């Protein structure tokens, strides 16, 4: 189960809508070992593509180093699908290499419908999970 505030979820969706029709991507960091997403970090999609995303290598280095310095981990790794459902594709699964992250998918294929789903992806196996939306304000 992913527990996340409404405010953070809104930021993820806003980012996805803003970058549509390119795929948007990012991280929500939180204190290591607590499974609590707290700090929203939009990432640049270095591919700038409607069908593929990739974190820019140096941006990822800086963000991962910063999380390390702050004793955080990437609790949520999010990205959007702009024409298909919010479900991990084959490439999503093959590149899901942060075993403790929640993989959050947003689909922006419908401008009027909110389509957000969360998954755990470990050793190539996808398990969908519930999203519990909280009301407390976050960063």
């Amino acid at each position, binding site marked *: 189960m992913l527990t996340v505030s409404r405010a953070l979820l809104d930021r993820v969706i806003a980012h996805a809508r803003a970058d549509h029709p390119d795929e948007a991507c990012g991280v929500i960091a939180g204190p290591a070992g607590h499974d609590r997403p707290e700090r929203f970090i939009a990432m640049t999609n270095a591919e700038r593509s409607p069908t593929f995303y990739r974190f820019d*290598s140096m941006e990822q*280095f800086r963000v991962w180093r910063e999380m390390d310095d702050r004793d955080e981990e990437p609790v949520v790794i999010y990205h959007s699908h702009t024409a298909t459902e919010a479900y991990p594709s084959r*490439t999503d699964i093959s590149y899901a*290499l942060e075993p403790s992250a929640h993989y959050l998918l947003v689909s922006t294929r419908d401008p009027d419908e909110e389509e957000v789903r969360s998954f755990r992806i470990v050793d190539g196996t996808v398990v969908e999970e519930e999203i519990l939306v909280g009301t407390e304000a976050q960063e």
Partner: protein
Amino acid sequence: MAIEVRIPTILRSLTSGAKSVEGSGDTLDALLADLDTRHAGLRERLVDDSGLRRFVNVYLNDEDVRFLGGLTAPVNDGDTVTVLPAVAGGMS
């Protein structure tokens, strides 16, 4: 000679859980070969027939080694190498 190599979570099963290991070598290629003698299989996760694997990021100190010559990048005592799997995906 000691070069620190920071290991991402996904590869720690090959280093008995260690977040960072030490090795030696004059180039990144030599360093990875050295690490592989103590952590079997580690090199293969990072290198394929055409060089460094496309979806693994390797950094020497604060730079992406792709801009430093890749596997031929010279490494020195006191350097830090960081490995991060690329975060990527797509529609299909």
